[in-house]
């Protein structure tokens, strides 16, 4: 029999997504700017850019850590892919993802074994990656000459998809399945919820921690490489602002900065919400600051709903209603 409790973590992200779609549809009225087929491709393209970072950062947040270095990794991986993938894009992609994986492993190892706070370690990583990117490119934006690859990655597939968006959707699906159907998901939530209890229960906390940072690094690197190929260029500072949108998407998806909550599918819903907001407001002709205000208000509402004082008052209200 279907367990309804499995749906609980997705209720809020789904409700937020539906509310955002509804509000934008109402603002648009009968103009047809928002509810159009063109917006779907745009939403999925944004999903492909923010999604991998949101998933990586979100997983580190689930274990009550944070990977700041992704902001530098996206830029560095893009530069590595463009510089090494001139003759063979697969080689560039492998070099970039390999670098992301190794540096993620290293950061995870330092955090786990030296018992250091992840913010400090990954901030160091961010600055190192940024510096390496400047050194690799001579502080210049570099061009990827194989424009056929860019053309291929920008092609519409089945009307709404592109190769990058399909890759990210598959990754989300696989990770969600592994998270939901194996012991790994429960262990990660336990590590984020109560690390001492997780250790007492025999969970290999250090291994999970190192693995999660490696996963985050590899995803950020893949995102940087795909972005570099899609835009046929790379820049030391990266070609997209990813850290804040990714963190926002993870929070919208039900991940808490205090750890122990969140699911990959929730992060996907959060990313989708953010992408719908960005593309929708753009389609409606509203400026980027309208987007920031809108997202800020949604995050504020979520923070209030998550607050312990608010929940305590809500419990008191429920109790009072039952008594009456």
């Amino acid at each position, binding site marked *: 029999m279907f367990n309804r409790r499995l749906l609980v973590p997705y209720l809020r992200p789904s409700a937020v997504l539906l509310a955002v779609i509804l509000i934008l549809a109402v603002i648009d009225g009968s103009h047809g*700017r928002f509810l*159009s*087929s*063109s*917006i779907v*491709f*745009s939403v999925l*393209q*944004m999903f492909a*850019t923010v999604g991998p970072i949101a998933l990586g950062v979100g997983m580190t947040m689930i274990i009550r850590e944070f990977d700041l270095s992704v902001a530098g990794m996206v830029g560095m991986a893009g530069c590595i892919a463009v510089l090494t993938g001139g003759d063979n894009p697969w080689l560039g992609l492998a070099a970039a993802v390999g670098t992301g994986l190794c540096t993620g492993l290293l950061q995870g190892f330092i955090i786990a074994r030296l018992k250091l706070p992840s913010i400090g370690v990954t901030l160091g990583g961010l600055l190192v990656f940024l510096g390496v990117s400047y050194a690799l*490119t001579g*502080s*210049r*934006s*570099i*061009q990827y000459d194989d*424009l056929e690859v*860019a*053309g291929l990655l*920008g092609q519409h597939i089945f009307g709404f998809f592109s190769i990058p968006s399909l890759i990210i959707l598959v990754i989300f699906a696989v990770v969600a399945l592994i998270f939901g159907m194996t012991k790994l998901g429960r262990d990660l939530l336990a590590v984020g919820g109560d690390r001492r209890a997780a250790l007492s229960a025999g969970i290999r906390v250090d291994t999970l921690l190192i693995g999660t940072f490696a996963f985050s690094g590899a995803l950020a690197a893949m995102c940087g490489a795909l*972005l570099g190929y*899609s*835009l*046929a*260029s790379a*820049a*030391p*500072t990266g*070609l*997209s*602002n990813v850290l804040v949108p990714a963190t926002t998407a993870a929070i919208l998806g039900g991940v808490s900065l205090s750890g122990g909550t969140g699911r990959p599918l929730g992060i996907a819903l959060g990313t989708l919400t953010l992408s719908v907001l*960005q*593309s929708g407001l*753009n*389609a409606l*002709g509203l*400026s*980027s*600051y309208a987007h920031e205000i809108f997202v800020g208000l949604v995050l504020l509402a979520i923070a209030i709903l998550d607050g312990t004082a608010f929940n305590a008052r809500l419990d008191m209200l429920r109790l009072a209603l039952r008594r009456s």
Partner: protein
Amino acid sequence: MSKHVGRIMRRSSAVLAVVIGLTMAMPAARADEATPQTKGKKVALMVATLQDYYMALLNRLVIARAKDFGMEITTFTTPYDPALQSTQIDEAIARKFDMIVMIAMSENAVIPALQRAKQAKIPVVMFVAPPKPGTEELFVSFVGEDNVALGRISGQSILDALKASGRDGGNVALVTGLLAEGLAPRRVAGIKEVLASNKNVKIVAIEDAKWDPVLTEKISGQLYGRFAGQGGIDVIYGMADNMATASIQAAEAAGIKVGIGPGKMAVIGGDCFKEGIEAIKAGKMFATATQIPTWEAAKTVEVAASYFNGKPVSKYEYFPLEAITKDNLAKWEAPCTF
């Protein structure tokens, strides 16, 4: 009688000066210039975030001028994010806009999206941010400044400032906009070209302040400290006037005298902002150079209209450039005040 004539003439001169100023400051009020070819044309305008004053101004001016031609403008903004801009171009293609008018966030990263626009037969007019040389087949026209030439003008201003200070050579520091690509490296190339004519002039530092006045002030302060023991800096160049005035603030905080003359550091700006004009008036800045948003916006729309009307348009629509010093300040005060 002569008193009256004199008064009338003085009044007329004042009115004439205001009229000339306004004429230069903004496109003159025009009658409806819409033609059947321009009326109702849907144009996607792509600029950076409107939190940037310059972008907000360009957006406003383009929309206002487009109204004269009956064009409908939809603005897409991006927080300087090339990936987002690429997605926006795809969206504009899917929504079948008649034209894309854009400031490219990255001359390299925009190329694949421009190719897709060309395949979809959507014309693109670029402005302000220069396109990558060799990609001319991907856009209808570029409207803006020849930034290498603008750099040459600033280079000449640096040499003039040194000469006016009674020095044959000296240490020059350049604090620039984003050097990774775009107009900043082009301007630096122009400056270097001119300064190479005097072997006694040495560029001691080229610092990327990413168009940020706050960062410029910090970098300038560090430069003054770094070169204090090496004869100091003789000329500092801020690529935009709000950067140059930030360098002035840092100099005053460090106790360095700015201006022209022995023992003073000369300051050169760019992009003529109001604060630059005020600094020249106050004798704190020697020169700036022209870049007028009212011209950029109006000309861009006029090029778009010409394209719709089937008239020929140049691939590069460059504006006339000029150094602005205290000698020609009156001519440029109004256009540079926005």
